[in-house]
C-alpha cells in the first residue's frame, strides 16, 4: 500500500464523528494553552496524560497532536498582543508582530501569523506524508544496537545542542536517568533504589515525573517571581489582510516550511532556531528593509510558517525512529509507552490505523485551526486577562488530579511535590528540564537495548557497532560532540 492509499484510509479513521470531536477538542485546548501565559504545549500534554487511562490510543494521539499544532497557533497571539512570548517558538513573532500591533495593525499581524501557521503546517504535514514511510522503510530492520545508538543520540543531542551549558544539561540528564533506575530491574527483577519501599518497586511513573517537572516546577517557579501588575494586551479587531499585505507575505509563507521542517526533524531545539533563521532570511530578501523592527509583516509570516512546519518535522523523527526532538514529542513518547506501543520503524506496519489516522487528523486539525483563529482571534485574546492566581492554582489542581489518577495512591502526590521542587531548583539554577524528562522516558529502554545487544554479541562491545545504521548514528554523535571544537578551529583560521 503506498502512502496516498494509507493516507486516504487514515482520513477514514480521522473523519469519524468521535475522532473529529477529539481533534476539535485538541485544537481548542491547544489554542487556549498557546494563548494562556505560563502553560506550554509540553505541560498541557503532560497534564492530559491521565486521560490515556480512559481513552483509546487513536483518540488520545489525535487530541495530543491537535494540542501541539494549536499551541503553535495560539502562541503567536500572545507574542503579538502582549510582547511576552511564552513558548520559545513564538519569540520571533514578537519582534515584528508587536510593533505592528502597537501601530494599529494587530489584525494584519494576527492574520499573517495564522495563515503562516496554516501554510507551514500544511506543507510540513505533506512532507511528513512523503518522507515518513521512506524513513521507516530505511530503518525497518534495525535491531537492539541500532535502537541503543539512537537513544544515545537523543541523550547527547538534548544535552549538547540545547541550552547554553553542556555541564548543566548533562547534570539534568543524569538526574533523569537516576530517577529512571528506581524500581525492579526489567531483566532480572532485582530491586534498585527502592530502599525497601513497596510503592517504589514499580518505579516512578513517567506521568508523575513529567507533570512534576513541567507543571508543579513551573507553577512554583512562577509563584516565587510572580509579576505584579501583568501587562495589558493591546486590543485588536478581527484579523484580515489587504491585497498589498498578501503580495508581501505569500512568498514568506511558502519559504518558511523548508527551513522549519528539517530543523524540527533533527534534535536541535524544535522551532527556536528555524523561526530565527526564517526571520533573518526574510529580512535579507525584503523589499522594504526600512520597516524591519517597526513592524514588517514578512517578519511575522515567515517565522510562523517555519514554526508550524517544524512541528511536522518533529513528528517524523518521533514516529519513524522513536526519537523525541522537543519536549512535546518527549511527553507524547511517554504516552506511547503508557499504551505499550513502541514508536519506531515498525509502527507504520504494526499500527497503520493509529499512524495514518493521526497524520490525517493533522490536516483536519489545521483546517479547524484556521477557522477557529481567523474570526475568533479577539475572543482568544480575552483569555490573556485571566487572573494569574486562578491560572496557577488551576495548574496545581490538575497536576494533583493527574498524579492521583495514575494509581490512586497518596504517596504519588508526595513524590510529585518532591519532583516539582526539583523542577523548581532546576529552573532557579539554569538546569534545563528537557534532558531530565528524556532521561526518565528513554533511560530504561536504552538500558534494555544495551543489555540485549551485548547479550547477542556475548559481551563483546563490538556488538554495539556492527551495523551500518549504528555506525552512522555514532558518526553523527561524534560530529555533535566535536562541533563546538570544530567551530572554534574554523573561526581561528578565518
Amino acid at each position, binding site marked *: 500500500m503506498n502512502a496516498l492509499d494509507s493516507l486516504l484510509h487514515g482520513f477514514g479513521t480521522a473523519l469519524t464523528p468521535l475522532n473529529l470531536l477529539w481533534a476539535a477538542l485538541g485544537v481548542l485546548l491547544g489554542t487556549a494553552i498557546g494563548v494562556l501565559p505560563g502553560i506550554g504545549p509540553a505541560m498541557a500534554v503532560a497534564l492530559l496524560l*491521565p486521560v490515556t487511562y480512559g481513552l483509546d490510543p487513536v483518540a488520545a494521539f489525535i487530541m495530543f497532536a491537535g494540542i501541539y499544532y494549536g499551541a503553535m497557533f495560539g502562541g503567536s497571539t500572545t507574542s503579538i498582543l502582549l510582547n511576552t512570548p511564552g513558548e520559545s517558538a513564538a519569540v520571533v513573532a514578537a519582534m515584528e508582530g508587536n510593533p505592528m500591533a502597537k501601530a494599529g495593525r494587530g489584525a494584519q499581524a494576527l492574520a499573517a501569523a495564522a495563515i503562516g501557521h496554516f501554510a507551514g503546517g500544511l506543507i510540513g504535514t505533506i512532507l511528513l506524508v512523503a518522507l515518513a514511510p521512506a524513513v521507516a522503510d530505511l530503518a525497518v530492520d534495525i535491531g537492539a544496537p541500532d535502537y541503543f545508538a539512537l537513544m544515545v543520540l537523543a541523550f547527547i543531542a538534548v544535552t549538547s545542542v540545547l541550552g547554553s551549558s553542556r555541564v548543566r544539561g548533562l547534570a539534568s540528564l*543524569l538526574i533523569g536517568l537516576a530517577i529512571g*533506575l528506581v524500581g525492579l530491574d526489567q531483566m532480572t527483577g532485582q530491586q534498585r533504589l527502592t530502599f525497601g519501599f513497596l510503592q517504589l518497586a514499580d518505579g516512578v511513573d513517567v506521568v508523575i515525573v513529567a507533570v512534576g517537572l513541567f507543571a508543579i516546577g513551573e507553577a512554583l517557579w512562577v509563584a516565587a*517571581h510572580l509579576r505584579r501588575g501583568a501587562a495589558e494586551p493591546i486590543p485588536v479587531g478581527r484579523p484580515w489582510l489587504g491585497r498589498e499585505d498578501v503580495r508581501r507575505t505569500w512568498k514568506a509563507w511558502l519559504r518558511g516550511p523548508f527551513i522549519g521542517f528539517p530543523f524540527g526533524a533533527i534534535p536541535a531545539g524544535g522551532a527556536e532556531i528555524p523561526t530565527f533563521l526564517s526571520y533573518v532570511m526574510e529580512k535579507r530578501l525584503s523589499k522594504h528593509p526600512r520597516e524591519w523592527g517597526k513592524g514588517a509583516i514578512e517578519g511575522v509570516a515567515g517565522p510562523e510558517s517555519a514554526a508550524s512546519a517544524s512541528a511536522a518535522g518533529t513528528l517524523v523523527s518521533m514516529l519513524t525512529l522513536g526519537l523525541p526532538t522537543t519536549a512535546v514529542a518527549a511527553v507524547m513518547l511517554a504516552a506511547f509507552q503508557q499504551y505499550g506501543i513502541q514508536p519506531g520503524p515498525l509502527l507504520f506496519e504494526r499500527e497503520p490505523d493509529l499512524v495514518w489516522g493521526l497524520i490525517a487528523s493533522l490536516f483536519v486539525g489545521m483546517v479547524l485551526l484556521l477557522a477557529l483563529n481567523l474570526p475568533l482571534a479577539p475572543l482568544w485574546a480575552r483569555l490573556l486577562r485571566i487572573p*494569574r492566581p486562578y491560572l496557577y*492554582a488551576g495548574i496545581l489542581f490538575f497536576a494533583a488530579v493527574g498524579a492521583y489518577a495514575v494509581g490512586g495512591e497518596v504517596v504519588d502526590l508526595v513524590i510529585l511535590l518532591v519532583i516539582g521542587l526539583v523542577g523548581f531548583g532546576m529552573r532557579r539554577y539554569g538546569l534545563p528540564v528537557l534532558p531530565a524528562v528524556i532521561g526518565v522516558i528513554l533511560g530504561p529502554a536504552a538500558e534494555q537495548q544495551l543489555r540485549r545487544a551485548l547479550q547477542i554479541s556475548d559481551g563483546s562491545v563490538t556488538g554495539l557497532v556492527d551495523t551500518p545504521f549504528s555506525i552512522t548514528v555514532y558518526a553523527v554523535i561524534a560530529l555533535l560532540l566535536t562541533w563546538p571544537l570544530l567551530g572554534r578551529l574554523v573561526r581561528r583560521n578565518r
Partner: protein
Amino acid sequence: MSLRTQEPSAGRRSWLRDHSELGVCGLLLALGVLVLTDALTMDVDLTQRGPVGPRTVPLAVGGGLLVIAVLLAVDVLRGGRGRAEGGEDVDLTEPADWRTVTLLAGIFLGAAVLIEPAGFPVAGALLFWGAAFALGSRRLDRDPLIAAVLSLVTYGVFDQLLGVPLPGGPLMGVL
C-alpha cells in the same frame, strides 16, 4: 541588611550567596553516592543473566553524577552561573518570594493528606482555593465558588466519563 556595618562574616555570607549554586553540586554528589552505594550493595550473584547485569548501568550513572558534580563545581568557582529561567509571568528583578512557595507546597501536602478521608471534591476545592489565596487572590465571594465547581466537575468527568476512579469521600456519600 546592607545598612549594617561590615561584619567579618558579611563577606563570607555574600560569597556563599553568590556561590549558592555549589549546593546543586552537593546534591548531585549526594545523589551519585546514593546510586553507587545502592548498586554496590546489590546482591547479584543469583540474578546475573547475560554479560551485563543489573549493576552496570547504575554504576555508570552514579559515577557520571560524581564527575558532573565536580565539573559543575569547577564551572561555578570559575564564575559560571546557571541562568534562571524567564517567562511571561516571571519577574526576575524582584527577589524570590519564599513565603508563597512554602505556602503552596504546604497546601499541596495538606490536600494530599485530605484526599482519602475527605474525598477528592473537598480536597481538590481546598487545594484550588488555598493556592489561589496564597497567590494573592482575595475574592471571598468568587474564589470558593469557582473552586467548588471546578473540583466537582473534574470529579464527575474523571470518575464517570473517563472511568478513572477518584475517592468521593463522605460528601459524595450524602449526595
